[in-house]
């Protein structure tokens, strides 16, 4: 067992453990902290794959900005322990069944398509951040500029939605 494989399994265990913790924690703030564990573990996996820039963005934007927003909203709304309502059996049993069916379907598709992926996976020259930036600002420059409009619209929408009604 080589060192990268051991690192992979440690990070994968961390990610799956964090995801399980997200499901089983009753308090939203504990779920949010579990999600941060998952995101940091995924950033480690990106580093392992040689995607340094994506790993950095994962930690800065996901672990930093988005999760801070979540924690902020949880504290703003003073979210307490999830109250237990007896949800309908219709949602419980077929929901579990559908989740397992979905996972099984994805697993079956992966199992069928292993050969092509394995064949393409040869160790070669690693892609660098420089190539990534060239690609973003050359091939994907219009989508990249469009995302700035998306963020502008999202910020405006968030402000309009969350502001209090003006007193007449």
């Amino acid at each position, binding site marked *: 067992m080589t060192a990268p*494989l051991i690192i*992979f399994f440690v990070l*994968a265990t961390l*990610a799956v453990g964090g*995801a*399980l913790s*997200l*499901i089983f924690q009753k308090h*939203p703030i504990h*779920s*949010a902290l579990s*999600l941060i564990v*998952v*995101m940091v573990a*995924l950033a480690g*996996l990106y580093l*392992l*794959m040689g*995607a340094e820039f994506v790993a950095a963005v994962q930690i800065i*934007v*996901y672990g930093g900005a*988005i999760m801070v*927003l*979540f924690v902020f*909203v*949880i504290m*703003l*709304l003073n*979210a307490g322990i*999830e109250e237990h309502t007896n*949800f309908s059996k219709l949602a*419980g049993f077929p929901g*579990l069944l*559908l*989740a397992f069916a979905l*996972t099984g379907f*994805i*697993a079956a598709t*992966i199992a069928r398509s292993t050969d092509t992926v*394995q064949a*393409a*996976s040869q*160790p*070669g*020259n690693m*892609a660098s951040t420089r190539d*990534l930036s060239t*690609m973003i600002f050359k*091939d*994907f420059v219009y*989508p990249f500029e469009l*995302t700035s409009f*998306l*963020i502008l619209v*999202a*910020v405006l*929408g*968030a402000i309009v*939605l*969350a502001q209090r009604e003006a007193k007449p």
Partner: protein
Amino acid sequence: MIPTNYYIVLSAILFGLGVLAFIFKRNIISIFMSIELMLNAVNLAFVAFSQAMHKLDGQVFVLFVIVVAAAEAAVGLAIIILTARNRQSLNVERVDLLKL
């Protein structure tokens, strides 16, 4: 060199756990976080395939997905604040105005 399959299987497991959390969570913020978990699982698959095919398109898509997730989080959390203010509850079972 770690086989690409390992990454894809991990991505599928994380996505399945995200779906489970989406179904079983009652708190609206937890449900929103499970959506983020699913987005992360998809990002992992993107980067894994990008590495397997030796093309950078996957990583560029991951950056776009992260941007869209950030915008979605901003708007979604604003909607959550609005809902919580109107209904005094974060439980999705209490948001039943359309129910007969």
